């Protein structure tokens, strides 16, 4: 490697580990806040009494009966009852996607070195196992995109792109931890870069469904709303 090449890689490595981390977090948090307020501006408050009970909710028979919800019925009628496999895979994937990066030991050591604070850390073997679970979930999504007619019917190139982007931090993290490739520095740079790109992409791309689903399902009232919900579109 000549000196100019070496200078470029050192600069790129330092940039990815330094200013770009800050840029990624600022874009992520500011963009998320913007989208939350934007979503709330699309909906308006409505007294809940105006909305009729849906399936899974008992219609009150007596005046003092407040229409208790039948949670078993609610679950059976939801996607969890109709498509339990995908519900489990999707839930595990999304929970790990958010929780894993916070509790990985390597990330907490970096936090501790930089700010003197850190979260509780998972053991390396647990993190490794959970990373494999995330990659398996991605494999399930990829299989559906490639082979199921119903998914193929609405799949576009961007679906593959965003699935790759979601998988990239975990795949590169797995490779880096096990030092699968000789060039550790390149793999760890790709790991950091993919994580940063993903963070920045969340509020402004297809990943916005992460924010959208939480806000809409918690605030907009429907039979399947996760919260009490007192807003309508």
């Amino acid at each position, binding site marked *: 490697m000549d000196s100019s090449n070496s200078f470029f890689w050192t600069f790129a490595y330092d940039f990815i580990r330094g200013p770009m981390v800050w840029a990624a977090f600022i874009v992520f948090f500011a963009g998320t806040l913007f989208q939350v307020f934007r979503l709330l501006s699309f909906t308006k408050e409505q007294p809940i009494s105006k909305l009729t009970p849906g399936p899974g909710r008992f219609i009150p028979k007596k005046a003092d009966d407040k229409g208790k919800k039948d949670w078993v019925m609610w679950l059976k009628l939801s996607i969890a009852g109709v498509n339990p496999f*995908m519900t489990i895979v999707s839930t595990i994937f999304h929970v790990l996607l958010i929780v894993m990066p916070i509790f990985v030991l390597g990330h907490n050591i970096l936090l501790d070195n930089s700010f003197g604070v850190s979260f509780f850390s998972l053991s390396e073997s647990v993190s490794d196992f959970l990373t494999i679970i995330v990659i398996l979930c991605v494999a399930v999504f990829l299989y559906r995109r490639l082979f199921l*007619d*119903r998914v193929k019917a609405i799949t576009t190139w961007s679906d593959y792109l965003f699935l790759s982007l979601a998988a990239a931090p975990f795949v590169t993290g797995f490779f880096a931890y096990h030092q699968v490739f000789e060039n550790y520095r390149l793999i760890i740079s790709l790991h950091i870069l993919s994580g940063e790109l993903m963070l920045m992409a969340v509020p402004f791309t297809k990943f916005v469904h992460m924010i*959208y689903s939480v806000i809409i*399902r918690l605030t907009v009232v429907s039979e399947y709303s996760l919260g009490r919900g007192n807003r309508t579109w």
Partner: protein
Amino acid sequence: MFWKQSTTGVNTKEVKAILDEKKAKMKLSLKACAHCTLCAESCFLFMGRNKDPKYMPSYKFLNSVGVLYKKKGKVDRLDLGEMRDLIWERCVLCTRCYCPVGIDIPDMIALARRVCRSQGVYPQYERD
């Protein structure tokens, strides 16, 4: 697009004006759709038509409002005709479709119907 699509017989300004009324919601809904197809079973027509993907709520939403948005309202009669089959023949607007992300699919289908109606494209039974 390399060529300019003929929009003869379509008042594209009127179409765009209708779309603009719900532009933000439409844009965000299209972006938020993860193309997961988990909405499929919530449509009784999908279940009753041998699980044909063309009856999935997401398919109907993406191929009606999605097309209108992508083309910025500059659609032709053929596009609207295809849309008519999709949003009337394959959807009864029963509002029972369920999106795990929370997209208001019925409202989006209703928007596409409004656009079609504004251009005189709707099923015969609505004329009678």
